[in-house]
């Protein structure tokens, strides 16, 4: 039982983006995809969702090859939480979440009471049941992200693929989303997410796929992969990783350093 990306190479129109990338996502765990802009994070999860043709390798869900599965079969196993919710019409939150039932319904079938109950539950899981009748254009960015996740949950998937779930969210909402991610994994869902913030991998204690320039890739437990050296090499900046004592435990903190330029002597003010 796992989502297995095995030796995958793919790209767009003959231009290779990923070469021989492999990792495994267990149910109930998180894997974070990290890497600089334009290195292929989005490409990697599009490959995992079966959106892109693969040049080499395969993606399998719990033993079944994605290439042999129908769209709705895949959608019942993996759900996708897009980065920016671009909903052109002002659907209510309830209607938007109900759309997650699509892979379970036939072409001409309408969602029934059971589907509405599942959508309700998804709203409650994400703590936004009170927004059900509001329109998606009325809710805040953080709430909209919760709506996206609730819609994905309504698919009743075993795996969630999230494209930068914390992008464009404020300081607090970023943490709220991560808390929900942890709750979901506790419920047995495997979460694959892209992020720009290595710190999140530390907070989630997740597995990591670190994509580097020149189509290199390192995978493994965050502590093994995300070293100061590896992050410095990947992002081209100096990185500090330090343990901070907190409540008898030690929390690892990761930050990038801004180079001293000689113009930044604010302390002397």
């Amino acid at each position, binding site marked *: 039982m796992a989502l297995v990306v095995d030796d995958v190479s793919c790209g767009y129109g003959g231009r290779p983006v990923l070469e021989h990338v492999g990792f495994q996502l267990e149910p109930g765990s998180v894997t974070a995809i990290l890497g600089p802009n334009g290195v292929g994070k989005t490409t990697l999860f*599009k490959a995992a*969702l079966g*959106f892109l043709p693969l040049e080499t390798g395969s993606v399998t869900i719990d033993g079944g090859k994605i290439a042999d599965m*129908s*769209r*709705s*079969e*895949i*959608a*019942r196993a*993996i*759900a*996708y939480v*897009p980065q920016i919710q*671009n*909903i*052109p*019409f*002002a*659907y*209510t939150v309830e*209607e938007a979440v109900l*759309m*997650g039932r*699509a*892979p379970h*319904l036939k*072409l*001409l*079938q*309408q*969602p029934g009471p059971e589907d509405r109950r599942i959508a309700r539950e998804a709203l409650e899981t994400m703590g936004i049941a*009170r*927004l*059900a*009748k*509001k*329109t998606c*254009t*009325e809710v805040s960015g953080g709430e909209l992200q919760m709506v996206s996740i609730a819609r994905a949950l309504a*698919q009743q998937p075993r795996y969630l*693929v999230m494209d930068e779930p914390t992008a464009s969210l404020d300081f607090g909402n970023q943490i709220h989303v991560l808390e929900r991610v942890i709750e979901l994994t506790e419920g047995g869902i495997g979460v694959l997410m892209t992020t720009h913030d290595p710190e999140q991998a530390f907070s989630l204690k997740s597995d990591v796929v670190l994509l580097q320039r020149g189509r290199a890739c390192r995978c493994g437990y965050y502590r093994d992969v995300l070293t100061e050296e590896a992050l410095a090499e990947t992002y081209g900046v100096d990185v500090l990783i330090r343990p901070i004592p907190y409540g008898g435990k030690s929390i690892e903190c990761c930050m990038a350093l801004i180079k001293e330029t000689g113009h930044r002597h604010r302390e002397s003010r």
Partner: protein
Amino acid sequence: MVPKVREKKSRAPFGRVGLIVLAVATVIVAAASLAVGRFSIDIGLLASTLAHAPDAVFALVSGGDLTSEELVVFKMRLPRIIGALLVGGALGMAGAAFQGMFRNPMVSPDLLGASAGAGFGAACAMLAAAPVAVISGSAFVGGLIAVFLTYLISIAVGKGPSNVIVLVLAGVVIKAMFEALISVTKYVADPYSQLPGITFFLMGGLSSLTWSDIGMLCVPVLVCGIVLYGLRWRINILSLDDDESRALGVEAGRIRVVVIVCATLMTAVSVAVTGIIGWVGLVIPHFMRMLFGPDSRRLLPASFLGGAFYLVLMDNIARGLFPMEIPIGILTALIGAPVFVTLLIKYKGGWK
């Protein structure tokens, strides 16, 4: 105890009850329209005429004698009213389907060029003095080509049909092109026998509708309407990003083609039978979205009913308000344009 959070109210106020009210209102207006026109028939006479409907229909079919009231009601007004219901419903529903499909609330059969393309197709067939069925077919082909071209341009120029400005501009270009082509057909038409026919036809009017036109109209409109109604929930999903709808297990391509073909066919047969009646496909879905919200499960039937209601009402004004009948296409444009602008101003972002 967890304090109960009060649910916030939805902005779209009407649900299933609203649809029923709209349906009843449409039936009432349609029935009342039987009494409207130059030949005045009061309610009592209308009621007694309708009471003899079976006899009159029999006489109509078998070519028997009819009283003048029966002739006016059953041979002239009834097909016209049914035609208005079907055409209005078709245009309204097609507009709502197009808007969902192109993820673009500014789209309508007119703006996509479907009407102009269908008009050109019909005009060509009229030039060749083709029978009605060929005019319809030719209108459909013209409409489909126009929508297809608009779609292609929007993909080539912008990042796809959800870019409002690009799609609208592409529609304007294609519409202008087909209008120029229509002018060509007018230019080469025989000025005595063909030109007046084509010109009046393109102005859009319901006055010449006969029972055989209704026969032409009702099958494609009802079949396409039922297909779109069946797909109503899928249309919601297609209004999302392609990647999102794919991740929801919906392969957008095929369903999108079915929806576009149905909406275009509905528009094209309407144009073939009544000429170009503009604005209905834009104004009605907008108005219905304000009343019923954007969910196609309610929006599609509401747009059909709303379009039917609106066109019957407009037709009554067209033939009842002035001593001489005005072509209804002129009326829907004269009324539709300012109503639309008013709606836009009043609801600013709410037109989504």
